[in-house]
């Protein structure tokens, strides 16, 4: 059991419960990883004359290899870049510290560097956002964003890397990153050597439950299949999340699973549905249904449950990372190709690896922190961090130590050991096969 928090008193401005807002506005859908999308998919590249006649635009894309000497992203290219004192940052909604409608960490950044940040909450889902910026990238034009945040287990990050649509990072400018980044996000499997990405936040897809109803949750995913909670179980509509849980439930590691495992997992989930155990398949709104009692146990994202628990006086929600494992994902900052302000973007990205800054972000966010030292800052804040945390405290209403000691923010050994990576599709056919097994379960008629 990961969550040892007691029900919390707090200031609890109900209008400010971030998990509700996040739940309402941030669909955590389509977490799929397809880092080697180019594989079999490359066979489908190219445009026939017939298609051109039909007006469907195809793409000519380059491979995502190392920067060529003197090319975009090389050391000499970075040396020529200048600060433009502006940066356009696209992030997911409710994913950064907020104080009275402003973002203290961004204001502090502008004070330090003179760089104005255009912070937009433009990303509510990986694939639709990718579909929006893709035409600009294909036309070799600026997407309008210098920094975007893409999830590691969703195909777009792999596409962007493989098609050469990300600007390789300036390793010499990643001073804070190389000094403070957690081993969980430094040199990750999805981007060896951090050539293109730096983590923004991470989290788990695990199980949330209402402790006032579920007295003995146990430590297994089988709780989601328990007939005792028939009609009160929430599952996720996203095929990646649903399928991964099905695999954990049949005792298979998702990352090393095979197509026959997928079929068995789908069968298990189909039975769970036809037995009437599942109330519904939810997107971002699962958290509201868990809060209002429509469900008592549900697939859940770690930060949401933690925030609901912290910021809600009457909440009995708890997070369970089962012994079969919790699916672990990371949202990554990256610079799209043809970005106009790459140097400003680099400066901002590295700034967020300062422990002081991450402490402020995490006090609001409660997802997994990419900078372990921020824990010490939360316990003994000084300077700007101390002032800002103090200013934020009335609206959050909890001691900083609650955040600092949460294993879901600064994971302990046990939590790290329970983290499981998602399956990486090796071809488009695999992705289609996966979707054709799990989508019909959630889009039932």
């Amino acid at each position, binding site marked *: 059991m990961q969550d040892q928090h007691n029900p919390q008193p707090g200031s609890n401005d109900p209008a400010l419960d971030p998990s509700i807002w996040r739940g309402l506005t941030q669909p955590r859908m389509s977490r799929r990883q397809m880092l080697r999308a180019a594989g079999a998919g490359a066979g489908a590249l190219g445009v026939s004359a017939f298609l051109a006649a*039909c007006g469907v635009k*195809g793409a000519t894309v380059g491979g995502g290899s190392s920067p060529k000497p003197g090319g975009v992203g090389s050391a000499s290219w970075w040396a020529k870049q200048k600060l433009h004192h502006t940066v356009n940052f696209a992030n997911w909604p409710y994913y950064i510290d907020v104080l009275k409608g402003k973002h203290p960490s961004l204001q502090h950044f502008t004070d330090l560097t003179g760089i104005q940040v255009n912070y937009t909450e433009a990303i509510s889902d990986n694939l639709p956002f990718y579909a929006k910026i893709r035409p600009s990238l294909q036309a070799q034009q600026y997407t309008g964003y210098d920094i975007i945040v893409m999830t590691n287990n969703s195909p777009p990050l792999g596409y962007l890397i493989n098609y050469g649509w990300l600007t390789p990072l300036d390793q010499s400018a990643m001073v804070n990153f190389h000094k403070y980044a957690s081993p969980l996000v430094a040199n990750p499997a999805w981007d060896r050597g951090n050539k293109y990405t730096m983590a923004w936040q991470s989290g788990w897809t695990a199980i949330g439950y209402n402790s006032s109803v579920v007295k003995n949750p146990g430590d297994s995913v089988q709780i989601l299949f328990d007939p005792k909670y028939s009609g009160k179980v929430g599952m996720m509509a996203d095929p990646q999340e649903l399928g991964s849980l099905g695999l954990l439930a049949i005792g298979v590691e998702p990352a090393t699973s095979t197509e026959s495992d997928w079929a068995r997992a789908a069968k298990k989930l189909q039975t769970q549905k036809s037995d009437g155990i599942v109330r519904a398949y939810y997107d971002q709104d699962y958290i509201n249904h868990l809060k209002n009692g429509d469900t008592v146990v549900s697939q859940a994202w770690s930060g949401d449950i933690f925030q609901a628990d912290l910021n809600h006086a009457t909440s009995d929600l708890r997070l369970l990372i089962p012994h079969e494992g919790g699916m672990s994902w990371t949202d990554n900052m990256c610079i799209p190709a043809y970005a106009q302000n790459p140097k400003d973007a680099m400066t901002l990205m590295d700034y967020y690896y300062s422990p002081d800054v991450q402490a402020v972000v995490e006090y609001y966010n409660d997802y997994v922190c990419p900078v372990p030292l921020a824990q010490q800052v939360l316990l003994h804040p000084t300077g700007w961090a101390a002032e800002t945390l103090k200013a934020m405290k009335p609206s959050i209403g909890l001691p900083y130590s609650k955040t600092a000691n949460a294993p879901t923010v600064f994971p302990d050994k046990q939590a790290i050991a329970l983290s499981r990576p998602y399956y990486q599709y090796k071809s488009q056919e695999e992705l289609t096969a996966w979707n054709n097994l799990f989508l019909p379960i959630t889009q*039932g008629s």
Partner: protein
Amino acid sequence: MTSSEGVAPAAGVTRRRRARPGKVLAPYLLSLPAGLWLLALFLVPLVVMLSLSLQTCNFGTGACVMTWHWGEFWSQVSLYHSQFLTSIYFAGAATIIDLIVSFPIAYWIAFYGGSKKNFFLLMLLVPFFVSFVIRTIVWEFILSDQGIVLGTLKNAHLLPQNFHILATGYAVVAGLAYNYLPFTALPLYVAIERIDKTVLDAAYDLYASKREAFTRVILPLTIPGMFAAFLLTFIPALGDYVNQQILGGTNNTMIGTVIQNAFLTNLDYAGGSALSAVLLAIALVGIFAYARLLGSRTIEEYL
């Protein structure tokens, strides 16, 4: 255009000869704007959609190549045939509800509206000046489990605590019926309004009772209008995805939602196109059935 009648043959010939180029071209020129509109905004997209359904698309680049992959149709239909059936069932139920609800309204306005007919028609349409999505979201708010209606009734112990309307098929059918009501009411009104009232008097003169006059005179005369109303309501409702998404749950998915997810959430353009093509075929079957039963002429009159 029968101006040459009654004119001496010789003169008629010369006149016709002079008028010929304009006469031959005029209908084509007049229909040119509509023709271009149809071509650019209907036929071309239709061909693109049909060809996309036979192509293999790369999810990453969005590039598609023609592979004549007819299997896409079979695999999509075998995955989602039950969602098609749900859509037909929901759209059909909503249309029948609309016919039952709007017939008395249309009848009353046509026969008893008097000089205020246009005012009553406007009243019927006023709610629909507000965006369709917004009205549906307001219904979600009104009907939510602990909302102003159900919450109040539950607090008064008139309803069991776990009673809910949202996320059921009933909510979806009700939403569809509400949103497409004017598409049923207006063609019905046109059909009833044009009934010659003297025909009704004739029925009474022949000793028809009020009921017989209605069932044997008025109802048969409105049948073409009812079919037009049925098509105008049924076909858009069949592909609707807004009502299901806002008011429905996960066990009553309509095919429109599946298509929308294929295009926007999964970037599966080929699969979405194949499903759209099947949906279109179902709609066409309805239109052809109409044309066979009532003749294509009545379509022009009511649509």
